[in-house]
């Protein structure tokens, strides 16, 4: 049987340029999305449309960071789901607290 042991010398694998290119490509995408958010903050009127667009772009960025940088996409499916599925509960928290905030708003100001 093959037992892992501490080796003193490791053989260095040469660089895989495709992999490194993919990392820089992801970085460029993240940078472009951030730049787009920046431009939108100054050109678009404030309102629900802008906020929804911001959230969509943010989740899009989060997807790139988790899947490419954290290599979650390369893990087995059960691990991916055991990380992503619990996050679903947070949407309920958003609904509850936005509702609560709206009620406090109407009690405080009207």
């Amino acid at each position, binding site marked *: 049987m093959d037992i892992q042991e501490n080796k003193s010398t*490791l*053989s*260095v694998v040469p660089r895989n340029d495709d992999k490194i290119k993919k*990392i820089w490509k992801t970085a460029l995408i993240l940078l472009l999305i*951030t730049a787009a*958010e920046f431009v939108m903050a100054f050109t678009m009127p404030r309102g629900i449309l802008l906020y929804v667009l911001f959230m969509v772009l943010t989740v899009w960025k*989060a997807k790139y*960071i988790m899947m490419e940088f954290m290599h979650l996409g390369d*893990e087995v499916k059960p691990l991916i789901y055991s990380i992503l599925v619990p996050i679903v509960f947070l949407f309920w928290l958003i609904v509850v607290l936005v509702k609560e905030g709206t009620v406090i708003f109407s009690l405080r100001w009207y």
Partner: protein
Amino acid sequence: MSAHSTAIGVSSKRGVWGGGNEPLKASYGKLMMWFFLLSDIFTFAAFLITYIGIRVSYPAYAGPATDFVGSNEYWPIPELVFDAIPFVHGVHLPLVFVGLMTFILIASSVTMVLAVEAGHRNDRNDVVKWMLWTLFGGITFLGCQAWEWNHFIHGSDTGAVLNYINVFSQNVTETVFGANLVVNEYGPASFANLFFFITGFHGFHVTIGVILLFMVFYQAAVGVYDRRGHYEMVEKVGLYWHFVDLVWVFVFTLFYLI
């Protein structure tokens, strides 16, 4: 003895419980880092969703941006609060500094993923090089945040005239400069409180991250991982560091853009 070991070796079904397996095909350390990060996602989400909840309980500033003055009656416009950069006093540069901070943190995330990639190839020189860049990015970000806090606490030259209840339960009207946990010149007290708690908690994570990065950088440089036979520690700390970047993406959107 030999009979037992053959039995385990032969039956693939019993081999699942025979030890030496990795659940979910990830090592123990990586798995635990992922589940720790999941719990941290909930902590930060609680903070950020609380921000949304309190944010919608206040009216937004509705007038033209040029006439904006801080008041505890309505929520401020973030680009008019965070509009300063170091060494240039009194110039209105909305969100430039925080954009720079975001860029620094994303860049350090990129160098981190390059270090992880070098670790997969057992390339000690590349790991050390990219860890050093990541460390540099992390420390720069912390320095920027220190300046940002300093500026936020000390406030603008003009301040804002506010009516509020002070720590002695007295109702006072006076010119307020900067921010503390009781009152601030930008908006309602919750605005500064949330700023301190959310960016503070994130900054605390960055600080822990910088310490971990330094440890990995040092251990890689002296050849600990070469002797260990693998560079998995770079990967585990890398997961943590990317998470810090991930949280900042949300903090940036909620605090500075919306």
